[in-house]
């Protein structure tokens, strides 16, 4: 799953941010956008490119929830579990989605098909429960929309 040309990928992306102050987060975002996750093998490459220590890079990768240290599923369903969605009944939606996907929250299916993840607020708090399905926002989740999501991530 780690691309053979990780070296080149990191190098090319790092050039894009050369000379920029505070380039580490933008670079890690770019690597994740390209590779899908941030493999441990990328850490020394990033450190070298930005003239940082490996420990600094490792510290940043592990601090932020966004950076994936393992590949995600082909489909990603993110469900908001924050207060305003709780007030609108996300509890039952979580149980239902978890049943239908055959996955507890914050896990990826063994076949690598789908990841089911928690997020804390998408800024859609008047129309919850809310999810992001492959980056597309879906509001007012109900049984019907769960059917659609499950069908969408079945392929």
């Amino acid at each position, binding site marked *: 799953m780690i691309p053979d040309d990780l070296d080149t990928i990191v190098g090319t992306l790092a050039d894009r941010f050369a000379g920029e*102050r505070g380039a580490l987060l933008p670079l890690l975002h770019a690597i994740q956008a390209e590779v899908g996750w941030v493999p441990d093998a990328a850490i020394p490459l990033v450190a070298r490119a930005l003239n940082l220590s490996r420990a600094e890079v490792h510290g940043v990768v592990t601090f932020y929830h966004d950076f994936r240290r393992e590949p995600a599923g082909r489909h990603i369903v993110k469900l908001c579990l924050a207060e305003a969605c709780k*007030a609108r009944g996300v509890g039952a939606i979580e149980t239902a989605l978890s049943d239908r996907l055959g996955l507890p929250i914050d896990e990826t299916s063994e076949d690598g098909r789908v990841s089911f993840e928690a997020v*804390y607020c998408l800024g*859609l708090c008047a129309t919850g429960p809310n999810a992001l399905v492959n980056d597309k926002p879906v509001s007012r989740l109900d049984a019907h929309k769960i059917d659609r999501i499950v069908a969408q991530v079945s392929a």
Partner: protein
Amino acid sequence: MTRAYVSCDMASVALGADDIADALAAAGCEVIRTGARGLFAIEPLVEIETTDGARIAFGPVEPEDVPAILDGTHPNRIGDLATMPFFAKQQRFTFARCGITDPLSMADYTAHDGWKGLAAARALAPQAVVDAVKASGLRGRGGAGFPTGIKWQTVLDATAPEKFIVCNADEGDSGTFADRMLMEGDPYCLLEGMAIAGHAVGASHGYIYVRSEYPFAIRALNAAIERAAPILAPLTVEVRVGAGAYVCGEETALLESIEGKRGQVRAKPPLPAIQGLFGQPTVINNVLSLAAVPFILAEGPERYAEVGFGRSRGTMPVQLAGNVKNGGLFEIGFGITLGELVNAIGGGTESGRPVRAVQVGGPLGAYFPPSMFDTPFDYEAFAAAGGLIGHAGITVFDDSVDMAAMARFAMEFCAIESCGKCTPCRIGSTRGVETIDRIKGAAKREQALEAMPQMRNAKVKHRSVDEEIGVLRDLCETMKFGSLCALGGFTPYPVLSALDHFPEDFGGAPALPQAAE
């Protein structure tokens, strides 16, 4: 050709606005995408322009409703939105354009009073701009309510090779979405505010730190910056994207994050206004604080200050969220009561059940029972009532809520998001979750660890529910007074307010038999 307006706001899209826009275009309409009007109960919403330029609203609608919309027979015809009570009662200073204009059209922005504040500011000396912001009484809308003019004065007075304007667009609080709506629906307004700030304090570069959960806002801002660059000059602006850390909304953690580090909170002093981003004097303000500034400069600080209550001047874009009928954004002068917002404006719960609690100010805000609904929306009044306004999100819960579960979630969230710098927050939050579990009987009270003498001041018996509640209160005190920032320091607000106002939810577990050991 019929002209139709459909919102491109993330919430509208999540409700299906894109499909409606496509159906209207297929039916031969000229479709203009706007920001959101702010009332999500009527979304997806379509507004059809009449020959005299008025707009007739229909909502909520589905794509197959398009023919009935176009011939005017659709039953969800609302008519002129401005006359609807939800809109007629508002005082839209900051959100005047949102939902009306095409967010990225420079022509629209200029035609709707855009850039007037910046022109007025540039005709003034920097000190006079700072004085105007002071005179408006504007206080930071990010949560702490610190006077914006005073912050700017400190940065103006600092001498340094370089200064920065940083916009805090991390908006991590559940129940809030005003920053997002403004960035998507009227991005030039924020950029104009930043340019005014740049002129006022002598900054040449600005950063907008946006959370990664807001891809629509990130796209809108990047496009707006590109188009407005010549007007913003000499200020240059760039967007930085967060990476899913709530604590990065705290201003010093945010600065660390822009610098490319872990988002760990810095001890203050030094204040960011004196030693902020890359060690330079930095204005750091919330989106709504900066977006209020163009109005203040264009219309005059008196116009802004004449609205409000006590020391809270101007308007607040209140966000009604959770289980509420008329959820959305409601901009109004300070002083309206919590009850008016929840019941008169919000229309009570969407489920139709009684309101049991509202949380004001996000995950660090207190829960209020309806008996406190006469509290006026004002920084001082909320502090006196044991809460905070925060970013003005109001999350409504009906009577099915379990307040002990909400208190537990507050502790759990703190544990997930703690930056790890101080012990009360890093460790206390986890201990808080465990204590609430024991109170609720979800965890066994007879755990061996809990029975050790050093855990219980040498008592030999397991703690009773009341004693566990005492432990929880103690823990909250320690977090409140021993934490470096408001994440650890304010997590006790939701927990203690739940305990104080809803004690019945904490007494469920039967008392343990004495002989548990």
